[in-house]
């Protein structure tokens, strides 16, 4: 048999019908994740056509985008930003009841950002096809799954048929050679990669991240990398599963157990691209050359090393981006005053991310001019962080410690950056207005975000980590 990529293997194993020149493939979906924002119109479509959910046991719903991150008051009322946001949450509750779909609801101890809880529960597993009406579904590819975002019409298709009509994407390899330097994180790496290939560099493709530096990443770091594949335009990102993957999944509530676990490991070990498999595009990245990396413009491909200066704009659009951000060509990014710092999101809202931010903040204070919001990615992440005292580190430093959710990454729930304010954010998008109308976003790692909070301006996180190591 011809050498196959990981994409070929996953695609082949889920093809109900192969594609032809006239029709796309029918691709079977193993796990369908659902949230309140992109599902109401899909359930309405099923209702209008008198259809049921074909495989309710393959659907898992939760609430994350429109939910407040402030706790309920004494009467149990939650501070929804608008009645519409609350109605959207109620709508998902009603739809899940009516269609027999499992919902990890507002008070459920396993609720959280959909891309944090899937892996956390062990629902996300190697070899699966996973979809969700959310572009950051690419996160789950870190486990060697084919995972991608879909629109609401397609959410309806999957609810009703467990299938999608899809043309096979092209396979692209991003080979990351060498090792990341100390103080350089997975977020820095993925921002660096997007800067290299561009925000449409992966359009039409599934990116497989490979190489020594990728193998050396923890599971949570791999999720950060795959999460931002969509910011390079790719349908999905994926990493072949290995011992790191298996160790992370073992014992998770929905992971296989006993003999089923052994059988699963046997299957999962075959999930890698064959040595001479052909990729339609290959990009090589030198991990050792990656520095702490931040965005400076209005899309995730406009990135800079922490010690670099803002480049001269090449065209009117780049000039517009600088004007929007309030930055000057030739200025250093470091030293730019910061108003807001956000640590959280499906990109960087996991326990290791909170630890990285806390390591910088421990024994220090958030600058008086800065508002810092720390939002754990799930209720479980929140409990784990509190168990090791991270909440106390954040609170003592002067940051706000919130309930889990998407929060200020998408600014749907009232957590937003005011017009003109500059936020250093561990989230994934720095588009104009993403964190609120007129908000300016600088994407960064958790350590760089925490360093900015302490310094009151954009700062090199390595300076803070070194100080701590000496002390």
């Amino acid at each position: 048999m011809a050498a196959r990529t990981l994409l070929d293997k996953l695609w082949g194993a889920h093809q109900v019908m192969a594609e032809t020149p006239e029709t796309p493939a029918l691709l079977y979906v193993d796990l369908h994740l659902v949230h309140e924002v992109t599902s109401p119109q899909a359930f309405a479509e099923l209702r209008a056509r008198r259809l049921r959910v074909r495989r309710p046991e393959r659907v898992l719903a939760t609430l994350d985008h429109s939910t407040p991150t402030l706790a309920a008051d004494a009467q149990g009322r939650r501070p929804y930003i608008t009645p519409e946001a609350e109605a959207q949450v109620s709508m998902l509750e009603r739809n899940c009841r009516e269609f027999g779909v499992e919902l990890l609801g507002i008070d459920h101890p396993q609720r959280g950002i959909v891309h944090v809880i899937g892996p956390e529960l062990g629902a996300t597993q190697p070899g699966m096809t996973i979809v969700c009406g959310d572009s950051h579904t690419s996160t789950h590819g870190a486990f060697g799954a084919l995972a991608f975002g879909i629109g609401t019409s397609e959410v309806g298709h999957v609810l009703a048929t467990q299938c999608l009509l899809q043309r096979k994407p092209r396979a692209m390899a991003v080979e990351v050679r060498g090792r990341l330097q100390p103080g350089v994180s997975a977020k820095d790496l993925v921002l660096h990669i997007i800067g290299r290939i561009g925000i449409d560099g992966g359009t039409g493709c599934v990116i497989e991240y490979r190489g020594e530096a990728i193998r050396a990443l923890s599971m949570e770091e791999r999720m950060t990398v795959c999460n931002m594949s969509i910011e390079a335009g790719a349908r999905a990102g994926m990493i072949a599963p290995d011992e790191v993957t298996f160790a992370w999944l073992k014992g998770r509530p929905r992971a296989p157990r006993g003999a089923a676990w052994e059988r699963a490991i046997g299957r999962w070990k075959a999930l890698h691209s064959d040595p001479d498999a052909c990729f339609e595009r290959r990009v090589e990245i030198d991990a050792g050359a990656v520095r702490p990396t931040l965005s400076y413009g209005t899309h995730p491909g406009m990135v800079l090393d922490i010690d670099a200066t803002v480049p001269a704009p090449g065209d009117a659009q780049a000039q517009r981006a600088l004007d929007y951000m309030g930055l000057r060509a030739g200025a250093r990014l470091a030293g730019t005053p910061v108003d807001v710092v956000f640590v959280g999101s499906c990109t960087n809202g996991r326990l290791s991310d909170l630890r990285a931010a806390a390591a910088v903040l421990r024994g220090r204070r958030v600058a008086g001019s800065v508002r810092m919001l720390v939002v754990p990615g799930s209720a479980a992440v929140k409990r784990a962080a509190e168990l090791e005292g991270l909440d106390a580190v954040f609170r003592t430093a002067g940051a706000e410690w919130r309930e889990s959710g998407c929060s200020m990454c998408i600014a749907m729930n009232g957590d937003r950056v005011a017009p003109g304010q500059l936020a250093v954010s561990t989230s994934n998008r720095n588009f104009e207005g993403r964190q609120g109308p007129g908000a300016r976003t600088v994407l960064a790692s958790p350590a760089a975000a925490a360093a900015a909070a302490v310094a009151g301006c954009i700062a090199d996180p390595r300076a803070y980590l070194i100080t701590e190591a000496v002390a």
Partner: protein
Amino acid sequence: MNPIRHVHSRTLVLAHENIDTDRIIPARFLTTTSRAGLGQHAFQDWRYRSDGTPDPDFVLNRPDAQGCKILVAGRNFGCGSSREHAPWALLDAGLRAVISSEIADIFRANALKNGLLAITVEDAEHRFLLEHPGLELKIDLVAAEIELPDGGRFGFALEAFARHCLIEGVDQLGFLLRHDDAIRHFEEQHAA
């Protein structure tokens, strides 16, 4: 869905590259549970000034934008979030087609499922369209060609099945439901 064979209109031009779906419809309007009514918020933070008044310089606010159904946009239109609210908003604002040299994958899939033509043309033709706003175009889906006012024609790219569904008004969910036997057979064999 109603069959679509032609879209005939003057063009609006938004030459900016990488127009993301947050730009097309900001997230604060996504708390709706309906598909309807999003057109009033299409390009909200671009179209309206911070005091809520329309920005007269924005292309959709110009008097000659009335009745235009074709948007010619810069490269990589529709990048970012998977929100189908973006094509819903554009359709509700009266648009029926978006032409660019590159359109983001998820936006394109969403648009085509709603009868918003999302089509790509070669760089030279794209440049020509960007440089000539207000051009009267006829998009001919059957011939897969765009006709210029002088009768000149050039091709565009659109995936075969999507084009077939648009022309014949095929309901894709209905198409999938008709493959129930194949799906059931697959499920019997499939382990994961």
